[in-house]
């Protein structure tokens, strides 16, 4: 026992003192911050507004195309041939031609562009036209505008979770964001720290220090000490990352937040100016109705966050982080002990990485439907549960499922650790031999 502590201590201290650890710990949140800032900056400043000219021979659609951050529509009266000719070299990026017989022949609309038409533009034009044509046809059929208006409903549901006696406003969006982040962190850490365990075991083997060590400690102690030591390094790094990024984000969002509002206003004015008078009216209405989204969305998100089972999330994150790591790092460790160099690890890595990657991919579906059969099953299987269960937990999971999943995961890593230690004790003393799967299997049943 004392020896395991010594090993854990060595593994932890040598790693934490490494320059690369310190650099990564500081740089990690900075990079995250930069990325975050970069994304916002890109969203704010690089919205490349496209100017689209529209020739509407049918005279039905004037003012019906809504100007947005991406597109400004300007209606023209010239002849189509002239417009086509002048498109090149003009300030416009594309030309939409709506022929006079569009009602009878809705497929006759043409979009001309020098650089090719984006899908977004195409679908926007199409949907605007569809809506208009629909309403025109409805009107023709005797349904008045007011009936139409009253029939139009804006549906946006509020999800309420019925739990712990009271009704709480919950936000599926906040739950999926939190679940997604947790799952991603676990996915990442299994790879990063699992690979660290593997590499350092191979290193001990090839440097032959292991020959000296195993006369003092049992192979199992050596392996478990390393796994726990690296786990503590991981927890330390994550802890520091969370503290540092929280700092950077609070500081950063203050800066960025102001910029965001400023530029939003600036942009709106610029947009307005470029619009014809009627369109300006429309745009103003739209701004009033839907404007101010960013400032409202943030408190909404944090409000929803409050309704999530935060304590459960944090505790289960720690558990699934450690559990998933233990399960996989034991397997990574077994691979590390079986090979003579890092380059030989490939053939054994694949079966280990496939379930992790699969879990991460399945998680994308689970976010959308956290209570599907697929979600429930994969959150029980120990090889996928650390990632999948973390996605589900913010949405609320029945307690029996959590208990079962936790029990299975504990069983899972006890099993993989046992399996790994059987391979490890043989592997670390086996040199110069290309090991096959069959041999690994045999090693498990060797007597000590």
């Amino acid at each position, binding site marked *: 026992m004392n020896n395991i502590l010594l090993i854990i201590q060595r593994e932890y201290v*040598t790693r934490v003192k490494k320059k690369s650890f310190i650099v990564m710990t500081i740089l990690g949140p900075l990079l995250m911050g930069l990325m975050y800032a970069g994304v916002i900056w890109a969203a704010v400043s690089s919205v490349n507004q496209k100017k689209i000219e529209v020739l509407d021979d049918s005279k039905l659609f004037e003012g019906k195309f809504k100007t947005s951050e991406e597109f400004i529509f300007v209606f023209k009266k010239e002849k189509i041939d002239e417009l086509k000719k002048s498109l090149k070299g003009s300030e416009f990026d594309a030309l939409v031609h709506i022929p006079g017989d569009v009602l009878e022949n809705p497929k006759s609309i043409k979009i001309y562009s020098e650089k090719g038409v984006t899908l977004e533009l195409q679908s926007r034009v199409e949907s605007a036209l569809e809506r208009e044509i629909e309403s025109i046809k409805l009107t023709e059929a005797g349904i008045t505008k007011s009936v139409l208006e009253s029939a139009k409903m804006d549906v946006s549901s509020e999800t309420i979770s019925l739990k712990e006696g009271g009704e709480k406003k919950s936000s599926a969006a906040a739950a999926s964001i939190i679940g997604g982040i947790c799952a991603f962190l676990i996915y990442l850490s299994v790879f990063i720290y699992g690979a660290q365990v593997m590499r350092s075991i191979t290193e001990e083997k090839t440097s032959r220090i292991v020959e*000296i060590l195993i006369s003092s400690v049992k192979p199992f102690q050596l392996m478990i000490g390393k796994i726990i030591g690296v786990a503590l390094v991981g927890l330390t790094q994550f802890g520091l990352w969370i503290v540092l990024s929280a700092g950077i984000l609070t500081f950063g969002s203050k800066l960025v937040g102001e910029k965001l509002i400023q530029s939003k206003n600036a942009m709106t004015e610029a947009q307005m100016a470029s619009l014809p008078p009627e369109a300006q009216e429309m745009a103003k209405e739209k701004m009033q109705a839907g404007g101010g989204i960013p400032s409202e969305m943030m408190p909404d998100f944090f409000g929803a966050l409050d309704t999530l089972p935060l304590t459960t999330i944090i505790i289960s994150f720690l558990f699934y982080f450690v559990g998933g790591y233990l399960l996989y790092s034991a397997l990574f460790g077994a691979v590390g002990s079986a090979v003579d160099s890092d380059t030989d690890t490939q053939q054994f890595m694949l079966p280990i990485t496939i379930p992790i990657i699969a879990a991460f991919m399945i998680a994308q579906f689970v976010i959308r439907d956290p209570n599907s059969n697929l979600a429930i099953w994969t959150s029980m299987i120990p090889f996928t549960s650390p990632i999948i269960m973390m996605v589900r937990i913010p949405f609320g999971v029945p307690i029996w499922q959590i208990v079962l999943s936790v029990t299975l995961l504990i069983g899972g890593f006890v099993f993989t650790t046992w399996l790994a230690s059987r391979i490890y004790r043989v592997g670390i003393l086996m040199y110069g031999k290309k090991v096959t799967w069959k041999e690994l299997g045999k090693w498990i049943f060797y007597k000590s």
Partner: protein
Amino acid sequence: MSENILEIHNVVKNYANHRALDDVSLTVPKGVIYGLLGPNGAGKTSLIRIVNQITAPDAGKVLFNGEPLTEKNIYEIGYLPEERGLYKKMKVGEQLLYLARLKGLSKDAAMDRLKEWFIKFDIKTWWDKPIEDLSKGMQQKIQFVATVLHQPKLIILDEPFSGFDPINATLIKDEILELKEKGSTIIFSTHRMESVEELCDYIALINKSKKVLEGKKLDIKDSFKSNTYTLNYEGEKVDSATNFNVLSNQKNLDGSQTAVLKASSGKFGNDLLREILEKVTVKSFKEDVASMNDVFIKAVNESN
């Protein structure tokens, strides 16, 4: 308490497709240097690993100091493996402290003893150097210190001189002798017969998983002597006589001759000399003692 630090009784060890040790029994008395010899792949390392409790025997038992080997004996054994290495990035001092503590020493005790060794080997300036900055020979010294730092009763050295220059080899040899003086027992596995000749009191020879020979080095050498004598002389060429046969005779550049004589059964050096003295001028006369090299080759060939 036993007279023997280590007794190995009828140990058998099987691996997947071969038998590494076949009914091997050895007795290592206290306070001796014990040479464990054998060709490559004979089973020496398997045996050493069993003594170190890295693996367990399939059959047979091992007694340490008269008692069955247990986990706490690990602290009383020091093992220098043949294939050995250290953490490359770790500093010399830290590394030795770590290894010593794994052998059950407290931090302070380890520190004190390390200081002594660093003075003894004149390596005080190495404390903060990472291992990878040291030459191979320097690393070997560090490994040696790690092996003996916890003052084990039994020290197992597998090819301890490989990688050493003659100066450092002598240094280590003197250390081994000093450890023996202080009462440690040393098991010494090597292929270098000259160091066996020089250091070992007892030897055991293992070939093809079986013990071939065991005993005091001098007794074994005695039993392997060929009863021949080498004679350097001047005068007429000697011929076989009643007490001996001439196996070979050659003329040397300086005019003397060298003959190898085989004593007749029951006859010894003096009998031979008496006869020779009458005929020639003897410059030197020497009984041919079996070298460890001869013993090794002969014993291995016989057992094959």
